[in-house]
């Protein structure tokens, strides 16, 4: 200490040297660490690129043979080797949309109840129950759908739907036909149950981030619970909720095993929601192992590429929507 004060310049020099040495010592691990993380990030890009390239290459024979017809026809004829992807695309989109139509309101309802209205002792059991739903393997949902849900729908719900809504004007054709128990609607219901926990737990988590002060101010002004949720909680957590919904949608679009059990696996587009249909992932899972002929295999790979594109578009749309919302909020 005294030395340092007596020879300030020398002390400074030692300190600088120490510093330099210390920095040098850290530089290598730092560089290694940075390189490793960069490599990890790049690996994702390389893998993604690899998937796209191999899908595109595998799908090429189908696209070159059928051109745009592949996207606009629903013929799926392995005998004559004519393939069109419209039926599985339709099935994928429609089952996911119906599933979201059911799961979003119910999921948000559960989340609101858990964060705003639920008596404290019930919160944990219900929350855990919802999370357990997410832990059930999809094959279990499929088996349950086939053995429990489908017979139930065939014997009770579907005859009732056909007898009532099936006769109604406009929406009638949606509920026509014999009650198979298996089909588009059953698959959508199973998907709704499967995506429910994603939407619920993400929404619940983001609802909990709303500052109590905001909510209490609103209650203080005389707002009802509905008004607080509608005007304070939802606007505050919009981004998180949309994230949860998109996570659910992503799962619904790609879900394979559970859907293939209950959708009926028919390459057909029919107006009725009770009719059997198919989805992209269900078709691939069903047919890939036994696809005879290069064009058949290529068509299935092309289906995979289309699913990839659909998922990408959905994610991009979600991003855009969020950006727009933020801009409007800023303005």
């Amino acid at each position, binding site marked *: 200490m005294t030395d340092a004060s007596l020879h300030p310049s020398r002390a400074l020099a030692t300190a600088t040297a120490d510093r330099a040495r210390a920095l040098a010592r850290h530089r290598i691990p730092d560089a290694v660490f940075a390189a490793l993380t960069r490599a990890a990030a790049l690996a994702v890009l390389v893998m993604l690129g690899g998937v796209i390239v191999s899908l595109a290459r595998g799908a090429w024979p189908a696209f070159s043979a059928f051109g745009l017809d592949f996207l606009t026809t629903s013929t799926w004829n*392995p005998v004559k080797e004519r393939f069109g992807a419209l039926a599985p695309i339709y099935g994928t989109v429609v089952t996911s949309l119906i599933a979201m139509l059911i799961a979003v309101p119910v999921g948000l309802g559960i989340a609101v109840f858990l964060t705003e209205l639920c008596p404290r002792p019930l919160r944990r059991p219900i929350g855990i129950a919802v999370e357990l739903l997410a832990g059930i393997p999809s094959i279990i949902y499929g088996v349950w759908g086939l053995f429990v849900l489908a017979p139930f729908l065939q014997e009770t719900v579907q005859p009732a739907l056909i007898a009532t809504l099936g006769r109604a004007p406009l929406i009638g054709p949606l509920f026509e036909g014999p009650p198979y128990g298996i089909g588009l609607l059953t698959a959508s219901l199973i998907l709704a149950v499967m995506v429910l926990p994603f939407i619920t737990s993400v929404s619940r988590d983001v609802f909990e981030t709303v500052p109590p002060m905001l909510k209490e101010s609103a209650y203080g002004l005389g707002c009802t619970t509905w008004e607080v949720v509608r005007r304070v909680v939802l606007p505050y957590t919009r981004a998180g909720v949309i994230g949860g919904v998109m996570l659910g949608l992503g799962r619904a679009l790609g879900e394979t095993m559970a859907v293939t059990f209950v959708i009926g*696996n028919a*390459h057909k587009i029919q107006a009725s929601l009770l009719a059997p249909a198919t989805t992209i992932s269900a078709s691939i899972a069903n047919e890939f192992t036994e696809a005879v002929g290069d064009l058949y295999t290529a068509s299935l790979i092309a289906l995979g590429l289309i699913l990839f594109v659909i998922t990408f578009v959905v994610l991009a749309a979600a991003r855009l929507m969020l950006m727009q919302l933020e801009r409007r909020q800023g303005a």
Partner: protein
Amino acid sequence: MHFKAMIVAAGIAAASAGPALAADISGAGATFPYPIYAKWADAYKKETGAGLNYQSIGSGGGIKQIQARTVTFGATDAPLKGADLDKDGLIQFPMVMGGIVLVANLEGIAPGQLVLDGPTVAKIYLGEIKSWDDAAIVKLNPGLKLPSQAIVPVRRSDGSGTTFVFTDYLGKVSKDWDDKVGSATAVEWPVGIGAKGNEGVANNVMQTKGAIGYVEYAYAKQNKLTHARLVNKAGKVVEPSTPSFQAAAASADWKSKPGFGIDLNNQAGDTVWPITSPTFILLPKQPKDPAAAAEALKFFDWAYRKGDTMAADLDYIPMPEAVVKMVEESWTQVVDPAGKPVWTAAAK
């Protein structure tokens, strides 16, 4: 450097030791015969110590794997055509047979009570007959009380040898079917629900009221499904059973197609079950590993001679003696690089 060289040397040694160590015969293909191949393999291993590794990945996969020569033998339900066999340098022979039966889910109707004929089944799967009390079905079943219930046709969603045999049968009995749909391991189905595998079809039929489906005989029997009797080519109503399947094999002309690639659908004869089919083995004529091919042939020979009871236990139909003789004669086409057959009858 020295160390590296040692590793390389060790690697080469290990690689060359590989085939000698791996005495297991490897095969891949059809799912339908998997249970009996597994049972035979187990008994064979106990008797000889040689194991068999069979992956039931489906006929299509089996064909691809044997074309790529990644397995010793391939297995397929739908036979390859002569031209394809020649192109890939393969021989083909039938190993065991199975029957396909129609099963239904109808309240108050016991197994074997329902009677159907080929044209009616074709019309059901074409979507032309929609209800169980349709005149065509009632006419075949004068004594039965058939409900006014929608028919739910269930079929395979995956490509399958079973589908090939079933659609081939429908094409033989219905010109309409042949024109509109055709026959293959996967077809464009006009109506119905698709389910994966025999067990998928069986489960869907059990779960869905008014359903009809086609499954291998073994699945119908083991799951105690309500099977239908069929009217055969001779116009007789027959019950699916081992004798009626064997009757189909007995009357067939096995040498009419290369690689014994015939089907046994709609054969003539009073007691013949009309939907019967063999399942086939594919072997390269010039195997990469002649010793493994010889091992595989030894196993097949053993299965022909000693496997019949085991096959019958699992509701498969063993090949008739005369066919086995023809098959074993064809095995002389499998040769080693020197052109010598890898298996001879004397090598038993």
